[in-house]
């Protein structure tokens, strides 16, 4: 059972899937750090991204231009995010502060149900695949689908770009400032609601990007966002809310633990290993590996 080759292969496969999951976590953590709310419908934006990718590749651009379709899909999700923020989430700040969490939770939960059902109703429950002409690539001893390697590369690039954007651009400064103190930036003349809108757009666009990237690998169907969201939340907890390096590290850690657990313990419990890690981390370090320091009460 414990052949070296299998161990190395499992290691590679776990690492790669972990990075892809991290992309999802990034969107969640980003929206949280700006707007102080959890978007439970994150997976549905992933789903929309994957449908857009499918529609663009299958109906408009053709499989050769799959790489062009990816940013367009992400942009589409970004725009949709702006609309959602404007129509549903902006009113949150007219609510009394103690009611905001409830409002955000209920509205995004309802949005989750709505988008999922709409996808089933409009596109049908069948799964689609935008197809991929990329050849199988050898990553060490492990053969990998070209689309998955491409997704991995795209995801890494997106993570790094995003990190740089936050660290070094003016806009990143505004975003970081907002995440520190919403009232503070308002006095500094920054339009917080505008920041929110863009932040929400970017956050869901990251999910949409993940959806578009993974569409040929994990298929396109109404509930395909579920598992990536689940992983995204786990990573956020393991790595700590608000930390980009934390998300990356936690993503890889989660990918590895699940892959090794599935390969060498019991494959039926693959998803449990991640949850066990989450519960363990929370018991030991409630704010995650690299999370912001816990501010109690």
């Amino acid at each position, binding site marked *: 059972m414990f052949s070296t080759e299998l161990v190395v292969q499992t290691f590679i496969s776990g690492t790669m899937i972990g990075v892809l999951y991290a992309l999802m976590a990034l969107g969640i953590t980003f929206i949280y750090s700006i707007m102080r709310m959890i978007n439970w419908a994150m997976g549905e934006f992933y789903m929309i991204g994957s449908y857009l990718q499918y529609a663009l590749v299958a109906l408009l651009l053709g499989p050769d231009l799959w790489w062009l379709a990816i940013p367009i899909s992400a942009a589409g999700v970004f725009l949709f995010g702006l609309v959602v923020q404007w129509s549903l989430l902006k009113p949150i700040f007219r609510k009394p502060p103690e009611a905001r969490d409830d*409002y955000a939770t*209920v509205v995004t939960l*309802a949005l989750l149900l709505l988008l999922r059902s709409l996808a089933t109703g409009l596109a049908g429950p069948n799964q689609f695949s935008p197809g991929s002409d990329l050849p199988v690539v050898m990553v060490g001893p492990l053969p990998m689908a070209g689309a998955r390697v491409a997704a991995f590369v795209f995801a890494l690039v997106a993570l790094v770009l995003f990190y740089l954007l936050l660290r070094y651009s003016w806009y990143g400064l505004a975003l970081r400032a907002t995440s520190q103190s919403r009232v503070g930036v308002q006095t500094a003349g920054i339009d917080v609601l505008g920041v929110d809108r863009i932040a929400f757009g970017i956050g869901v666009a990251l999910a949409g990007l993940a959806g578009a990237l993974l569409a040929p690998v994990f298929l396109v169907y109404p509930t395909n966002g579920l598992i990536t969201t689940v992983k995204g*939340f786990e990573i956020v907890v393991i790595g700590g809310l608000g930390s980009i390096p934390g998300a990356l590290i936690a993503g890889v850690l989660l990918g590895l633990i699940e892959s090794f657990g599935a390969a060498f313990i019991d494959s*039926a419990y693959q998803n*449990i290993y991640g949850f066990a890690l989450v*519960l363990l981390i929370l018991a030991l370090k409630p704010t995650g590996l690299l999370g912001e320091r816990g501010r109690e009460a």
Partner: protein
Amino acid sequence: MSASFAFPPSFRRSVITIVVTAAVFAFAPLVAGSFALHVLTISFYFVILAASWNLLAGYTGQFSLAHHAFAAIGAYTSGLLGYHYGVPAWIGIPSGVVMAALFGVILGRLVLRMRAIYLAIATWAFAETVHIYLTADYQFTRGELGLSVKPLYGSVDPLPYYFTFLALTVLVLIGLRALIDSPIGYFMRAIKDDELRAKSLGIDTTRVKIAVFSISSAIAGLAGAFYGHFIVLLSPQMIDFSEMAKIVIMVVIGGFGTFLGPVIGAAPVQMVMTYLQKYGEWNLAIFALIVIVLMRFSMEGLASLFTPLWRNLWARHDA
């Protein structure tokens, strides 16, 4: 609690209202058919779940997303005891309650120091773990095939179950009301508002939080255990996230953190969802739209409509 404590007059009024309302519902079988009774019974089940979750989230500020899992723990404990060891329901159901309470203590202790958002994710992770376990350990739990449970009254005719759940709901609601009007109730709300201040006053917030977590889990377990003996087949779908979403939506539509909220929120939501069932894949879309529109335009919940009514009623009574 020491003897010096007396319930405020509002407690007596609530009990009277609960009992009178229940008495009205006791006549429902005269006009309702088998299906309507079934829907009402399930609604009572959700009233209990929503009210006990509200105790945790609405009053104490612990936004748990594992409440459906505790119902399932109660249900499966009794179901598994019966299925594998032939244990009768009158032992199985209390065992389910104890088991749910036990898990409640453990999870409550684990999430104790967490801020709201981590708590939500941690409890959700716990629920998913239970879900996966019930699916994966199919040799013991019968997995997705479903665990057959003996009907409580030998038959699945909804009438006796209707009265059982009506009685349960009355008991649970009176119990919750008593808890909320007791010192622990004050402590719960204090913790939600300002935990540091609560500690500085001498409130053992750790103990209160764990106590509330286990009490509300036990109630969920109680409801779940009875539910299992009514539906007669348990499946891991009981811990589908949409079930939790339903509980949250019920409470918020009714009025978060109010006593009346879950009571008047649960039944209409359950009925609307059952009614929409015939629209197939569109049912959840319609339901979600209704929720979004409601939330978008009024946040107070239905309970706020009733509060003035309630005051007027008793004001006249007092006068």
